[in-house]
């Protein structure tokens, strides 16, 4: 990719992105192409990161990584292109609570119908309890946990979580943002990532 094209891409992405400055955007673009590798840089071919790349970056637990990937991949084409990459990271690293809530809700709403249903919850929580040999039905605990969650978050008592329910609960208790599994980087890896990627070229000589 030539410099001019890169410059243009950087400019457009910077314009559309709230949280990053031009330098940071250019760093991210550079990183993107490093990850994607020169091989994919053929005109016309779909450029993007597939799931495997993604894990490398954020070390998210495998169980929820597919969810996260969906959150990034807005156009659902199975790979993350450079725009999705920058926007996704913008949310990850600098996103406001509102943006994060929106993102997390979308991730948890597996079928995209605007609600998190009991079944979806069950699916997401099914590995959250250690199997106890004494328990007859291991699913009992999960079902109970779903009920507990509903009791806590389902304000309109319709047996499923709407975005309004979810938002209210999160505003009351920020810990519930990632109620059904981690889908945001933890602050430590976030800091490490930023330190790594946004290294000022001028610092290099120090």
């Amino acid at each position: 990719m030539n410099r001019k094209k890169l410059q243009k891409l950087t400019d457009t992405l910077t314009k559309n992105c709230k949280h990053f400055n031009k330098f940071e955007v250019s760093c991210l673009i550079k990183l993107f192409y490093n990850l994607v590798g020169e091989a994919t840089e053929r005109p016309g071919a779909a450029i993007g990161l597939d799931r495997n790349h993604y894990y490398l970056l954020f070390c998210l637990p495998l169980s929820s990584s597919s969810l996260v990937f969906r959150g990034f991949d807005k156009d659902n084409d199975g790979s993350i292109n450079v725009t999705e990459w920058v926007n996704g990271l913008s949310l990850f690293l600098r996103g406001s609570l509102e943006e994060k809530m929106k993102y997390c809700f979308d991730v948890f709403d597996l079928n995209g119908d605007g609600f998190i249903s009991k079944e979806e919850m069950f699916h997401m929580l099914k590995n959250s309890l250690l199997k106890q040999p004494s328990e007859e039905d291991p699913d009992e605990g999960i079902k109970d946990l779903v009920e507990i969650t509903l009791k806590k978050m389902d304000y309109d008592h319709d047996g499923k979580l709407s975005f309004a329910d979810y938002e209210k609960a999160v505003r009351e208790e920020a810990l519930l943002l990632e109620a059904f599994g981690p889908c945001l980087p933890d602050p430590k890896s976030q800091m490490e990532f930023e330190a790594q990627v946004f290294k000022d070229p001028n610092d290099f000589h120090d």
Partner: protein
Amino acid sequence: MGVALARLAQWTAAGYGTGTLEITPLNEVLLKEIIIFVEHFTNDHPQEAKCVFVEPLEWKTNLEPSAFESGYIVSSEEVDKNGEPLLFLSGPQIKVRSFGQLSQLVFIAKDAKLKETQACIEANRDPVVKILGSEYNTMTEDSNVLNILHKISNGDDPDNEKKMKIAILLKQLDLHLLNHTLRHISLQIHLNPVPVKKDIELLKSFSGKGDQTFLESIEYTSDYEFSNGCRAPPWRQIHGEMCYILVKPHDVDTLCVTCSTDGVFLNGGKTDDEGEIDYERKGEVYKDLVTFLKDKSAKFSENMSKQENKFSEEQQKNQTDEVPKKEETYADQKAISGTDKSNLEKTQTNFGKTQMTRRLEPSLNWRTTVDSKDRKTPVKESQEEKHGGKPEKSRASVSHGRAQLFRKSVDKVEEIASESSTESEEDEEPPDHRQEANADLPSEYWQIQKLVKYLKGGNQTATVIALCSMRDFNLAQETCQLAIRDVGGLEVLINLLDTDEVKCKIGSLKILKEISHNPQIRRNIVDLGGLPIMVNILDSPYKSLKCLAAETIAHVAKFKRAHRVVRQHGGITKLVSLLDCAQNSVEPVQSSLYETRDVEVARCGALALWSCSKSYSNKEAIRKAGGIPLLARLLKTSHEDMLIPVVGTLQECASEENYRAAIKAERIIENLVKNLNSENEQLQEHCAMAIYQCAEDEETRDLVRLHGGLKPLASLLNNTDNKERLAAVTGAIWKCSISKENVTKFREYKAIETLVGLLTDQPEEVLVNVVGALGECCQDHENRVIVRRCGGIQPLVNLLVGINQALLVNVTKAVGACAVEPESMVIIDRLDGVRLLWSLLKNPHPDVKASAAWPCDAGEMVRSFVGGLELVVNLLKSDNKEVLSSVCAAITNIAKDQENLAVITDHGVVPLLSKLANTNNDKLRRHLAEAISRCCMWGRNRVAFGEHKAVAPLVRYLKSSDTSVHRATAQALYQLSEDPDNCITMHENGAVKLLLDMVGSPDQELQEAAAGCISNIRRLALATEKARYN
């Protein structure tokens, strides 16, 4: 008498011979009763009093022969039929042979009668035998009145009838003593009769024929129940035994069991003859009857477990109405027996000392935590009583503050002495309320148990959900707090703090923060090692996490052990560094789970420091970590949330000298004054409290005035609803009014009138300060007039009858200040105030004595109090410098009257004053010199002072740096120099040169006295020279 003495009196060494009676309250009671008996004997039974003892009672006495009137010098005039005197004194040995003489002796011994009686009883271990003969040995328990009668009627002694009467009288005394002491002893019982009785009744209802019952039968050995609930005979009750029961379980033979205060055990069983019981212990001691029976009978144990629920339910029902009683006896027991008598006394004296050295501090400091107050009251009170040594328990409302005061000083003693010494007050574990497994549990209990299960067995996601759900319970409620603990939740919550999961840590701390309002939970958290982990979290990069950890520490670290743990794990330094955050004014707008405002971090740090600053070592640690400048900086902010913990910490720490200096240096006073004007009552209170602590220092008092702090203080006086704040405000006013300029200001603000209005209907904590302030204000003539005009004298005099030491010190001082005005003096006298002041001279507290002695200058009036002058002179034997100074001042005043001077001279004022001469205390020196110079005016006192070697030390006073000492000394020397021998002593000690310097002083009185003294010395020198040449 015999039984009581042998069984009850607490002898130091068991066995006969040289044993001595211990000084215990019980023995004292015994001795006093015996004295009363002996004293009344002659009057009540004149005939018997003359009856001659079989053998004399013989002991070493401390009485001087001179104590006896003429006729008693060596032996009594009264003799027996053989011509032997009934009382014979030779050297220290004394022999007495009748009750008549005994009562005479008690009368003569006056104050020493207790000692004499003790010596007599110690030397005559069985007085009854000596009095009546060996056949009346009452040491055996089987003796009864009939026995005695029998023996006496058989004898052919002509005094038979008298002897019999005496025997009966002694028997009566014996019973009386037994009853009397029983009352004392029954207070010390551990297990008390009530629960034992209930247990037995309950078991009874579950016993009978058939396989399902617990026992075949259970019965008392005696049907008679004493008024204290015991059935054991009195002489066994002394050993703590309450009753004996016969138990027949299904599978073993009948057991004869002793229930005693120490527990339940098998005794020797019924002896065959007369149905007597062999009291000897034959087996282990069990904690209660049920445990005993479970161990003895397998059948009982089996049937018991079958019906456990029913039984324990019944038992619980019983226990609930028992609980208050138990607690009461618990407290009483502690108050009376203490743990270890000598130990107790040690702490008591210790305590007294620290209280004195720490300047009398009124008990403003009662706030620890509102929430814990109620729960702790019983423990605190018993503690207080331990130190006060008074077994009364009815001052709950007022005593709270005092208890705190006690706590403070005790805390300090301990901390200085040794950090690891036994924990005080708050560390006495409150009774654990673990819930019984089978009791009716609230539904929350089960829900919480389920959540804890998910906490244990869930991954991060499940854990967070469980944590959030747990927060929906009412964590302020004790049921929930204890439920979390009882299902093992605390361990899990604390373990979560040790993981890397930030979210779990946050969730866990949010719960711990709430439930640690409960004192029991605090202790459990510390026991489980929660504090060091929280201290480590303070280093976390996430501000919200830091905040939560600091806040939780603030809640947990409310007792000494916790304070120590925080400090030892470096928590103080970390907390102090949290204070440093707030300088960064550019705050991140973004509020996320992990971030929070810097101000918040600093606030939480201050909160935790506030909690920790109640311990002396922590105060030091805060200072060393550089906390004071940071606190000073935070004080400039305007958030009340921030200011309260900051000022609270400062106020707590201002008890230390180092802090007061630093507070002055950091210009903190200015901001304290500013915040007095705040709207927040709590903030006002802490500011006033801090000012109170700091205003010991003169410069600080001036600063308070310069920054305009006196006006808000004066206006806060008008709001009397909030007593804590009122106490703090009056305290600040008191300390500030030590400076004259401040008093003038207070007068301007009409504060004096308001203070007078506060003399009635206020708690003691307020009164101490109000009176203290008035005492300072009344050093001024104008204010004295105001106090009188507002009718302040009457309430002040009324306060003279109180018992609160701190208050009395201030009241005597204030009354003394008022008494300077003749007009006021008239009022005081009319209200009987002078007599009240005099009676305070007998107060055991030296500070009270000292301040009561000041106003004792009412000339002629003084003599009208019987023994008053003698009392004053005797106070010179005190070893407290303050007392001595004020007594000297009082003597100076008293001695203005010639007749008084004559009386006190007779009471030996001269040698006592002379003995004090070798002091380095300038205040005492001045008053002593004044007293000496005044006392020279009588008879040959001048010569006497010389003989008692008072002159040489006085000369040295002239080298003191205090000019007021110089003047008094020169005047005294002038008086003394009228005697030639004294002149020689002065000359030998180099007085002339020193006096010559004084002649040049601008102080005219000093000049004159010095010159007069020199001229006397000179004149003597001339006369001797002349004599030599002639």
